[in-house]
């Protein structure tokens, strides 16, 4: 027989001590009772007592197994009880929180607003970051895809590749399963039977036949392109359409496969539909139509004949995409491609020249380049702003709750006195702040969802719209929102909760007497104030810089008269216009528009300032009378323009004359140059009449015009720029110059736009205008990032400033309230009320100054990050900093003055009598 079946064993470690002891006691008592009863029965049957005991015990059976079962059951019961209790406490705490919420509706409203703004802004901006920087293209195994493009000599500038280049890289490399080439353009879809049949512009992609196979895409209808479609001898005029286009243009009809789609007036047979999720490889670059690369000449791409596929110097392909062979890593592939590039340069130095290649993994969407604008940096700045706002909100709420919690020490003391543990009270207070944060989080997520929906119009630079990058609040972002709410709740709730419950009944009694004059809370209040002031400095400095940049951007001299100007861009070559017909078209168009009432000038050209994202440049072989330095290139940007262009654009003519209708093929070639070019190559100032050599041609400079900002980022300053007459170019025709820009000048330009549009449609209904807008609107778009930055920063920093001021006010008035008695004594002992005011104010000076200093240091460090989109603004701009510091000091002074004055008016008699 075992010595003691109830001996304590391992289960003591699994149960709380009292539970284990109780379990043992309970069981042994229960079994004792059973045995006693049985012994009674046996004795009644005549068995002797000692024998009865032995028999009863033997009959009972396995005690140890019974004990094990009982312990198991007790454990289970205990766990369940504790879970139930925990949940009940939670419910209770939530009820407390709800009561708190109702009891001080003002405080609650402020808390929730602050939280909703903080969390909502973070979720919204993060969803944008997710959609642009973190999302992988929806293709199979994107991490094995590599993008490759040609780089020109200077730095990492992105250039185009030629078809022979692509073939050589594809055939010589061993690192890739396959390489596909890819080029994008905008083409006109139009006039198809069975569709809406309205002309529309579509993002069109030329891709080699292996492109989709390489991406691992499956069609939702029909088939995708195959190498057979992209046959060199006879490319097939077939097209794959996007899911969106299928739904919108073909109404999602099943018979889309086999129907004819006219692309730039050339008939293509639709063979399949792309999956809905496929959004191209670039951020926001959703392709509408994909056709075989070798059909490019059919679409008039580059207006170049079939020979482009044989010429290494004919560079027009945007991107090469490769899928890494199994086991090959990115670095190996990169090394191999660079080596092939060097081989090519040796074999064909003339055509390859100094060109090299750049490779990039496609684990994430590729970022398009917009005039040097750095989207990831912009988003990083936005993320830091919203992060700071949330941090500030936490500091602010922590301060408020710290004051509230101290005020609630009575309540806490009473609850402790009637038996609540400190942990229980901390939990209650934490539950309160987390409940607040959760409600704020829900409001914030709702606000984020709403704002993402409302802001679908162009918001991002470079023509990226929120709609095209498709930000979505998916589960991960909801989780982020919840996590933020939890962290926020804990962050602003924990310290106040610990503070409020610290101390014993003795300190409670002291509190009741109001005897304690200062405690550690003062220091904490001050640290939090300093933190808020610091964050404020950073945000205000940021908004100051952005505001200045936006204003500088607006006042920037683009070199021509932007008021009363409209531009439209269209592409004649894509509509199969022969050169002569294109010329006729533009002449007729300009004549019709000039005839419109209110129009004071109209012309066409290949380029318009401010709107250019990709320039055209050429190299002069000589400038008469100018001796170039050994390394100097006579490189200039150029445009072809029609007569009346400079007048319509409002670009001042500085010297000489501009083109007139008579400047055609019959006359010697002439050019107009800008001031930078005149100064550079005719230092003596005699540019007009000078001769330059371009290829074989001798060209005379007939006039000099003012410099203008051409690039769409407004950042590049003067470089040599030459203008040739459209009627005279060596190409001699309009059609090869694509696209064509129409410029229209008129006093009331906005009202003229419909009439201009009508005239264009009358001349060719198939012409889908990609952009007819006023120059003012173009500039607005160019300045969108600065504007968005300024608006966001200003909004958030205004909020921050208000929060910080309210925070200071709250802390000072709280401390005044608590020190009323002390003030009363001071006054009774003869201090003037001014002394008292300065006593109160002195307390707040140190944290404010510390916050200002810390914020200043942080602002200086962080503002380097935003330099990228600043116009003539220096990050350490003293004026901005002075204004920011002054503004904050003023806010702090006002927030302190109000409660401090109240302290000075304390009536000593009343205060002391109250004791």
């Amino acid at each position, binding site marked *: 027989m075992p010595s003691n079946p109830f001996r304590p064993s391992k289960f003591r470690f699994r149960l709380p001590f009292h539970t284990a002891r109780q379990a043992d006691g309970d069981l042994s008592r229960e079994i004792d009772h059973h045995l006693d009863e049985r012994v009674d029965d046996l004795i009644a049957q005549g068995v002797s007592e000692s024998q009865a005991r032995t028999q009863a015990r033997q009959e009972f059976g396995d*005690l140890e197994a019974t004990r094990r079962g009982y312990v198991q059951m007790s454990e289970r019961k205990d766990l369940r009880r504790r879970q139930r209790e925990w949940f009940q406490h939670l419910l209770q705490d939530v009820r407390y929180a709800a009561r708190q919420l109702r009891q001080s509706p003002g405080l609650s409203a402020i808390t929730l607003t602050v939280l909703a703004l903080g969390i909502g802004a973070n979720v919204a901006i993060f969803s944008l970051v997710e959609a642009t920087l973190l999302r992988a293209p929806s293709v199979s195994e994107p991490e094995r895809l590599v993008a490759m493009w040609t780089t020109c000599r200077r730095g990492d500038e992105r250039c185009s590749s030629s078809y022979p280049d692509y073939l050589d890289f594809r055939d010589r490399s061993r690192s890739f399963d396959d390489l596909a080439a890819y080029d994008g353009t905008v083409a006109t879809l139009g006039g198809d039977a069975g569709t809406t049949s309205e002309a529309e512009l579509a993002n069109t992609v030329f891709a080699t036949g292996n492109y989709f196979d390489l991406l691992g895409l499956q069609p939702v209808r029909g088939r995708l392109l195959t190498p057979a479609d992209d046959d060199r001898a006879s490319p097939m005029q077939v097209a794959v359409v996007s899911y969106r286009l299928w739904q919108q243009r073909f109404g999602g009809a099943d018979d889309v496969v086999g129907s004819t789609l006219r692309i730039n007036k050339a008939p293509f047979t639709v063979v399949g539909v792309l999956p809905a999720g496929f959004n191209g490889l670039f951020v926001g670059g959703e392709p509408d139509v994909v056709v075989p690369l070798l059909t490019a000449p059919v679409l008039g791409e580059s207006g170049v004949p079939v020979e482009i596929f044989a010429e290494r110097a004919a560079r027009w392909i945007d991107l090469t995409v490769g899928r890494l062979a199994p086991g090959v890593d990115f670095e190996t592939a990169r090394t191999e491609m660079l080596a092939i590039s060097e081989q090519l340069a040796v074999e064909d130095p003339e055509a390859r020249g100094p060109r090299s290649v750049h490779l990039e993994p496609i684990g994430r969407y590729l970022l398009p380049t917009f005039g040097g604008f750095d989207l990831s940096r912009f988003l990083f700045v936005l993320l830091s702003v919203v992060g700071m706002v949330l941090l500030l909100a936490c500091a602010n709420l922590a301060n408020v709750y710290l004051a509230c919690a101290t005020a609630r020490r009575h309540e806490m003391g009473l609850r402790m006195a009637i038996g609540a543990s400190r942990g229980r009270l901390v939990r209650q207070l934490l539950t309160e702040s987390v409940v607040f944060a959760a409600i704020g989080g829900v409001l914030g997520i709702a606000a984020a969802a709403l704002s993402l929906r409302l802001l679908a119009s162009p918001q991002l630079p470079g023509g990226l719209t929120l709609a095209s990058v498709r930000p979505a609040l998916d589960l991960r972002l909801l989780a982020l929102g919840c996590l933020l709410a939890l962290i926020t709740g804990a962050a602003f709730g924990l310290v106040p909760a610990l503070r409020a419950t610290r101390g014993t009944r003795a300190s409670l009694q002291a509190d009741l007497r109001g005897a304690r004059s200062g405690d550690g809370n003062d220091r904490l209040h001050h640290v939090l104030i300093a933190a808020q002031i610091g964050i404020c400095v950073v945000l205000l400095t940021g908004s100051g810089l952005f505001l200045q940049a936006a204003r500088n951007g607006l006042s920037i001299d683009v070199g021509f008269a932007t008021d009363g100007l409209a531009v439209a861009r269209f592409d004649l070559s894509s509509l199969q216009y022969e050169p002569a017909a294109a010329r006729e078209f533009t002449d007729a168009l300009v004549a019709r528009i000039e005839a419109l009432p209110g129009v004071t000038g109209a012309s066409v050209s290949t380029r318009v300032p401010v709107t250019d994202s990709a320039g055209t440049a050429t190299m002069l072989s000589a400038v008469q009378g100018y001796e170039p330095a050994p390394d100097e290139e006579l490189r200039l940007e150029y445009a072809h323009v029609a007569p009346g262009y400079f007048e319509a654009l409002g670009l001042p003519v500085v010297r000489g004359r501009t083109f007139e209708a008579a400047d055609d093929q019959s006359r010697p070639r002439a050019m107009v140059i800008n001031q930078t070019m005149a100064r550079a190559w005719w230092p003596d100032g005699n540019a007009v009449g000078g001769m330059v050599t371009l290829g074989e041609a001798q060209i005379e400079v007939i006039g000099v015009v003012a410099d203008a900002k051409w690039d769409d980022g407004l950042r590049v300053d003067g470089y040599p720029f030459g203008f040739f007459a459209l009627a005279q170019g060596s190409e001699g025709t309009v059609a090869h110059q694509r696209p064509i820009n129409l410029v229209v000048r008129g006093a009331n330009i906005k009202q003229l736009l419909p009439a201009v549009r009508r005239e264009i449609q009358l001349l060719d209904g198939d012409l889908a205008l990609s952009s007819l807008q006023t120059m003012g609107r173009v500039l607005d778009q160019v300045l969108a990032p600065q504007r968005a930055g300024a608006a966001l920063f200003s909004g958030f920093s205004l909020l921050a400033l208000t929060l910080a001021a309210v925070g200071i006010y709250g802390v000072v008035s709280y401390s005044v309230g608590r020190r009323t008695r002390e003030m009363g004594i001071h006054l009774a002992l003869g201090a003037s009320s001014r002394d008292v005011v300065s006593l109160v104010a002195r307390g707040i000076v140190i944290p404010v100054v510390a916050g200002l200093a810390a914020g200043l240091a942080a602002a200086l460090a962080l503002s380097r990050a935003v330099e990228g989109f600043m116009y003539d603004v220096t990050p350490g701009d003293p004026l901005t900093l002075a204004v920011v510091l002054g503004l904050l000091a003023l806010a702090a002074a006002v927030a302190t003055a109000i409660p401090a004055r109240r302290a000075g008016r304390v009536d000593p008699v009343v205060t002391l009598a109250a004791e």
Partner: protein
Amino acid sequence: MRRRRSNLLQGTVEILILQMLDGEPIHGYAVSQAIRERTDGELELEDAALYQALHRLEGRELVTSRWGITEKRRRAKYYELTDAGRERLRTEVVSWRRYVDAVSKVLEPV
């Protein structure tokens, strides 16, 4: 040995106990007595197995227990059905009857 070892299935023990508890709260010894009386000693249940079953049922919240004083002025643990226990007893009885009927039909001479 006066008693035979019980070969009752666990489920059967539990349904018997539930049935015994359907009424006034009783203690463990009374349950064992009641089973013995109701079956005229045909079915005998080892005490350890009885208590283990009681504790299992308590763990599953089909019965609850509390301490009480017996007629003999002794402290004993009284067991009682919970609502869930009563519900379980009802369904177990129905399915037990169905089972017995089915087995009887097979065993009856054709």
